[in-house]
């Protein structure tokens, strides 16, 4: 009658409580993906169901592997910069910054103060659109027929217009260079950015009124996909997923890179580590980003935007290695470069936060239903471009 999967195969990971041990009904093997409406791109989950509860979940990905790191070894340092936009295609500005930071450490370049300010402004704007976009997709998974997603995308459009006016392209900005930025901010741009940032809290209040108190949303997400701080730290998670479990690790405070110590902002941390906390952490982070943006836009200094020593072409950093990492919207995105003095890096490695955050997907989903697995995946916030590289 029901297609019986492998009858009661031994459960792989030890942490699975024998579910319904006395009743070993047929396990239902359901493959969700790779083109499934709720898997955020080309990602597949082999889910083994006992009735409605998940007994085993095997993520399958690699469909979007573009050999990014090997390519990096065969192009110049500058040549890899446009490819970093394609990693986490929702936050190209932070990808660029992380790569530029790594090369600057390698080549010993120091970006001027105005460039640092511009980078912080763009990174925080990227955090806003990533978090609001993510919450829109999460609500799409819980079932709102697109309303929060459309509100989030309405705000995202305004930020993307800013990016287009600055870097030329909405999503593939290719804006940061080693030692500074490519194009300077025009006063008109700064004004529209200031207007947008001042209007953002109103959008956030409306968003929270629609979602945070909603009983159905709370019932669907509170207590679902609970993640323990120990597992989060052992699995090397970073970003909002880690902070939702109560571990207050934020690179902007830990590394204090760029000029972050100059701005006062707080790092929200959760207590339960479940899907609701991951949602709330992102909302609170957006409010903190607005604080940073307001301060940054207020005291944006004048001055050059490029380190005079920086040469555009023919960058041959001396032999050595460097690891530049920043607090991207999804977590710690890092670039590890080994240079051997030639224009091409000897080794070009990326630390993808969503890939590492994805490793705990099975632990979060065990014992939940298919509907919960979809939301848990949505709350981890993965972008397949970065997962598969």
């Amino acid at each position, binding site marked *: 009658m029901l297609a019986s999967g492998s009858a009661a195969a031994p459960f792989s990971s030890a942490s699975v409580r024998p579910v319904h041990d006395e009743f070993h009904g047929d396990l239902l093997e359901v493959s969700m993906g790779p083109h499934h409406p709720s898997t955020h791109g080309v990602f597949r989950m082999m889910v083994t169901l006992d009735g409605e509860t998940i007994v085993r979940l095997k993520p399958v990905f690699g469909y979007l592997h573009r050999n990014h790191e090997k390519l990096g070894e065969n*192009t*110049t340092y*500058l*040549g*890899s*910069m*446009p*490819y970093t*936009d394609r990693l986490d295609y929702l936050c190209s500005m932070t990808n660029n910054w992380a790569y530029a930071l790594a090369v600057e450490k390698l080549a010993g370049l120091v970006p001027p103060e105005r460039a640092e300010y511009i980078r912080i402004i763009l990174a925080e704007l990227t955090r806003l659109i990533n978090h609001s976009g993510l919450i829109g997709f999460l609500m799409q998974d819980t079932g709102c027929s697109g*309303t929060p997603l459309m*509100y989030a995308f*309405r705000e995202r*459009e305004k930020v993307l*217009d800013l990016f*287009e*006016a*600055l*870097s*030329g*392209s909405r999503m*593939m900005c*290719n804006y940061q260079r080693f030692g500074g930025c*490519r*194009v300077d901010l025009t006063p008109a741009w700064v004004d529209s950015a200031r207007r947008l940032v001042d*209007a953002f809290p109103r959008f956030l209040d*409306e968003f929270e*009124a*629609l*979602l*945070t*108190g*909603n*009983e*159905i*949303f*709370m019932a669907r997400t509170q207590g679902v996909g609970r993640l323990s701080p120990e597992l989060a730290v052992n699995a090397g998670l970073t970003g909002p997923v880690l902070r939702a479990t109560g571990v207050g690790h934020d690179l902007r405070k830990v590394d204090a890179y760029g000029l972050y110590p100059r701005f006062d902002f707080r790092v929200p941390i959760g207590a339960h580590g479940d899907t609701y906390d991951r949602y709330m952490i992102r909302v609170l982070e957006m409010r903190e980003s607005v604080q940073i943006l307001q301060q940054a836009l207020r005291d944006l200094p004048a001055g050059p935007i490029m380190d005079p020593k920086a040469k*555009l*072409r023919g960058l041959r950093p001396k032999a050595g290695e460097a690891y530049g990492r920043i607090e991207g919207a999804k977590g710690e995105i890092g670039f590890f470069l080994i240079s051997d003095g030639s224009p091409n890096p000897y080794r070009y490695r990326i630390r993808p936060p969503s890939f590492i955050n994805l490793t705990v997907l099975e632990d979060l989903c065990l014992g939940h239903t298919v509907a919960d697995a979809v939301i848990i995946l949505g709350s981890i916030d993965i972008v397949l471009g970065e997962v598969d590289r």
Partner: protein
Amino acid sequence: MLGSGIIKGLAVTAKNLAGSFHDPARYVTQEFPEVQPQLPENSRNFPFLVADDGADPMGTLRCVACQICEKECPPQCIYIEKSKDKKPDAAGKLQLYPAVFAIDTSVCMSCQICVEVCPFDAIKMDQVFAIATTDRFNGLLLNREQLAKSNQYYHSIHPTEATEVDARLAAERKAAEEKARAAAAAKAAAPKPAAPPPPQPPA
């Protein structure tokens, strides 16, 4: 009270429903074919070659086929063949010109690195985005003639950037002319002093 969150949510959607009829901040949809988008000045799509004079684009191409953009282009989608002969450029100096300059727009990701690295401001980013073709191979391989556009067109799409480039080019040209004139004057002056000193015997 149990339903309060849901009622608040309904109120928000009702406000949006009403708002979308009169509040421009809410109703942001631009219906594309009828309403053409006003692209910001920096917006970029595929590159194009700048020709000083629109009438004779092939004659007045700024590109001197130095092939820097071909080397620097990350996806390697530019193909240049140098010309055998030379022709005078805007400043009168004899320069090579590209016999073949093709960009495969199916590979190009419009990352504008070629524009950045080009020392002669010969290649700039266009803003035309509606360029669908039925022919996947030849239709997307744009050759020299299809790529060339006049400087005047460049002014129309990137005004501030174009004026800066023109100002810089004019300054360079003036500097080149002064150098040339100084060199010419020096050459003219040089034969006179050269004439009187020969009578001194070498010491």
